[in-house]
């Protein structure tokens, strides 16, 4: 039933009826498998991939990648301090990394000032946060496996043997 996930990751709108046909299974079985995945948190939620760069009159939001060095805490390791940080709604993603710094955040704000003040006033002031480095994102080419540029359609001739 793991193939259900593969299908939904490609297109979350695929209905249980369609999945049942694709996998040659009963609709009931598919529905309950999806329910189970949702309950277990395997399926977290269903979202839409949006490329706002195309909306000309849209207010562009600003995103930055932020490297954070922290001091891990006794008994909690990194989890505790990570949670202190990722609970902020401005933090869109949060990863613990190997290498020269510990946490990598994706932070979103209305403009550069907003992101900067989030970093300097909220993030850097947390106990155990030792240092931060901010990289503003200038352009997104590909995100989570999706190329954001409109790729020219593969122009196959409409009919061939």
């Amino acid at each position, binding site marked *: 039933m793991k*193939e259900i996930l*593969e*299908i939904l990751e490609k*297109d979350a709108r*695929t209905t249980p009826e*369609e999945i049942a*046909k*694709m*996998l*040659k299974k009963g609709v009931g079985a598919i529905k309950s498998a999806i329910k189970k995945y949702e309950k277990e948190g395997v399926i977290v939620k269903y979202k839409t991939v949006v490329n706002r760069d195309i909306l000309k009159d849209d207010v562009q939001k600003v995103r930055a990648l932020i490297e954070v060095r922290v001091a891990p805490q006794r008994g909690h390791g990194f989890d505790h301090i990570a949670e202190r940080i990722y609970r902020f709604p401005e933090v869109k993603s949060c990863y613990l990394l190997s290498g020269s710094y510990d946490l990598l955040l994706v932070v979103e704000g209305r403009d550069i000032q907003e992101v900067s003040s989030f970093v300097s006033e909220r993030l850097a002031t947390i106990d155990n946060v030792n240092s931060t480095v901010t990289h503003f994102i200038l352009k997104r080419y590909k995100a989570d496996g999706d190329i954001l540029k409109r790729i020219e359609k*593969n122009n*196959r*001739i*409409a*009919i*061939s*043997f």
Partner: protein
Amino acid sequence: MKISRVIENMKPSGIREFFDLVIGMKDVISLGVGEPDFVTPWNICESAIFSLEKGYTSYTSNKGLYELRLAISKHLKNKYALSYNPDHNILITTGVSEAVDLALRAILNRGDKILIPDPSYVSYEPVSEMAGGKTILVKTSETDNFKLTPRLLKKYISKGVKAIILNYPNNPTGVSYSRKELLALSKIFVDNNLIVISDEIYDELTYDFSHTPLATLPGMKQRTIYLNGFSKAFAMTGWRVGYACGPEEIINAMTKIHQYTMLCSPIMGQLGAIEALRGSSGSVLEMKREYKRRREFIVSRLNEIGLYCAMPEGTFYVFPSIKNTGMNSVEFAKSLLYKEKVAVVPGTAFGSQGENHIRIAYASSMDNLKEATERIGHFLKNAH
């Protein structure tokens, strides 16, 4: 100006007019395309770009790049325990289409009889005739799922039949043969001393059992011309790279023709093909899984909306029956195109036995398949 009698007598494709209609119409969902909807995997494209930057733009040896022949030899050995020597038994061609032509011209004398299943891929009959052969159409039937059976085959074999063209998994029907079925057929091929041109271009797209190359069966390797290529499995149709494997004297004969008519397959395509064999098995499996899901979906939907459709074992084609609509296959295809803007290929494009059937290619996105089956369902409701 007078053109040659052979070409003049060649039957024009009965559905040229229909093809022109499709090509001239806008916003059509086409399920009539005989090639993958995927783009060639990027590692292959990238390696071809790199080769151009390095200046690899020359001819190759007539037989094709040795490195590619070696890669093919290894591939067939690993996958099928089928061993062909890269020096003597393998020829790189400009797609399987060229290989079919070369094989036929290499083996046929004027008037030699050759068996061709009906329905079958469109080039076999005219190319056999151009090579001087006398074609005998083996009329397969829907009750056998359009497969050759020993009984049917025996009916058509007579003195003077020299060769047969086999294609599995099959375009247009999608059916393939199990090892057991092939064994039964191969006994007849051996007993009657037939040469078999075995077009196995869709081998990677076999869903329900493992593909068995004909040449791996007892007594078959010395009489089989094994044809395969990169178009379908690696989504490389436009690259035009195929290959033929077979006994040394046949490969030499084919190379003789090839060196004068084609010289060699384009080097960019050959270099891309090397990369395809080296590092694309992941992409091939991924595409295959996707095709399989689409196959289950389309067969189930077509039966649901009232077109009887068997579950084919391979390719990306299904060949449903339209008999209960009362229309013939060209009428059906035309009417469906006009009324619902969905293009399919009439079964008669592949031979008269294809009457009452249409070929649907499911090498199209799930969104297209959903919408197209919806429209076909609507079409059927209004047709009654």
